[in-house]
């Protein structure tokens, strides 16, 4: 079994197509939609967590590419600018997955990309614009 967090970008003509249900039914993938923004006639952006067998995952990605959906790993869309971070910990109490976490001994903040679900709660909480989400 594999687990992947990805960002899908839909071209306008696919916005009304049942793409996700195909991933579930035809490729046996378990889909957790973490975020979705779909604008009719423009485009759609989805943040998904996919769980499934390697073969299903690969075939599913192939299907998505063929119909024109662009796939990106989520990690690329979330940035922690360490140079801007002052380790104040303002983000710590709002981060639901502990992607932003603090070592209580050093009081240093760290960002674990793979735990991030791009909920964006850290964005208004950070006074130093250290978190950026290109979504």
């Amino acid at each position: 079994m594999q687990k992947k967090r990805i960002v899908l970008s839909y071209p306008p003509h696919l916005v009304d197509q049942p793409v996700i249900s195909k991933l579930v039914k035809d490729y046996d993938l378990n889909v957790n939609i973490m975020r979705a923004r779909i604008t009719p006639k423009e485009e759609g952006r989805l943040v998904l967590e996919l769980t499934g067998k390697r073969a299903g995952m690969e075939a599913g990605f192939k299907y998505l590419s063929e119909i024109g959906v662009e796939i990106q790993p989520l990690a690329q869309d979330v940035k922690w600018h360490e140079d801007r971070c002052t380790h104040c910990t303002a983000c710590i109490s709002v981060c639901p997955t502990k992607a932003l976490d603090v070592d209580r001994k050093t009081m240093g903040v760290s960002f674990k990309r793979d735990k991030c679900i791009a909920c964006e709660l850290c964005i208004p909480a950070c006074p130093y614009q250290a978190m950026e989400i290109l979504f």
Partner: protein
Amino acid sequence: MAKTIEEINEKIKKGKAVVFTAEEIIDYAAEKGLKKAAQEVDVVTTGTFGPMCSSGAYFNVGHSKPRIKLGGGKTTLNDVPVYTGFAAVDFFLGATAMPDDDPRNKIFPGKFAYGEAYVLEELVAGKDVKLSATAYGTDCYPKKTLETYISLKEMNEAILLNIRNAYQNYNVAVNLSEKVIYTYMGVLQPKMGNANYCSAGQLSPLLNDPYYKTIGIGTRIFLGGGIGYVVGSGTQHNPGVKRTDGGVPKMPAGNLCVTGDLKMMSPKWLRGTSYTGYGVTLTVGIGVPIPILDEEMLRFTAVRDEEIFAQVVDYSESYPQSIPGSIAEVNYKQLKSGRITVQGKEIPTSGLSSYLKAREVAKTLKDWIEAGKFFLTQPAELLPSVDSGIVFKPLKERPIKKG
């Protein structure tokens, strides 16, 4: 045996001063005992790095040819207004000022992405900023418009002057309402979804000298990465609040007015800062050296997070409506653990003041003293303390008579 500032400075000169940070001294005092530690240790360094809104700076930019009188007109740095009610080319920059065309909270919550605190950070980083002015013109100052780049090194004077910094303790902010609120204490989630605090606790300058027995007018300090001085007590200095048996205030109490040459400072320790829905502010690094003149001062500097208490205040109703009252009292050990319990509810906590950076300030100041580059000062006057009779007054609004 009591020590004097002169004796300590003599040891610093010889490279023999014993210096600890306010964090390191805790274990050392516990191990050696107060008496022995007080004999051995000469200086304890403190530090803090947090948002301090009442910060600013004054400048003299030199005279143009022909001359211009900025006063009475409008002057901006990178399109952010400064105050010009002085002689021709002096002006004052307030850290929270923002561009006239910033939408503020019109689209709520506003981002407040830029303001004078950021201009200050850029200047200190050595960058060019745009100085623009319009003036009314006089016989002696005929020029009416000015538009130029300027950097810190081209100015005659560039002096940080912060009228309320380094607060001795602060509130812990929560939100009892049903909706998210955006405050100077950060974004507060409804129904006490989080609690934000803002103090370096055991490392914080005034919490290590709670009665201001060594800090006063003229005290030399670490300020913004350079050297600064205490001007005196800051605005709203309020020493007469409730204290623990150890003398530590249980709520915001004293604070410092500080000044220093911006040309010696660093953008690492003066940071432009934006609180969503609230505004722009400046995050300032300050470190104050505490001379260990006697055993009592050693005891004060050995204060621990668990001995420093703060009040949990509701920022949805109590604070904005000026209704006094605390929901609970918690200590900094609890706050720094990441969770506090208030009214039976466990709440995650966040700091707004960086403890990691506070430690770095205290360590830097310690290094300067050990290297013989920084000497202690005898204040001209100590800050007003609990016996000063200072009362922190609210504003009583009186109706203006019409006609």
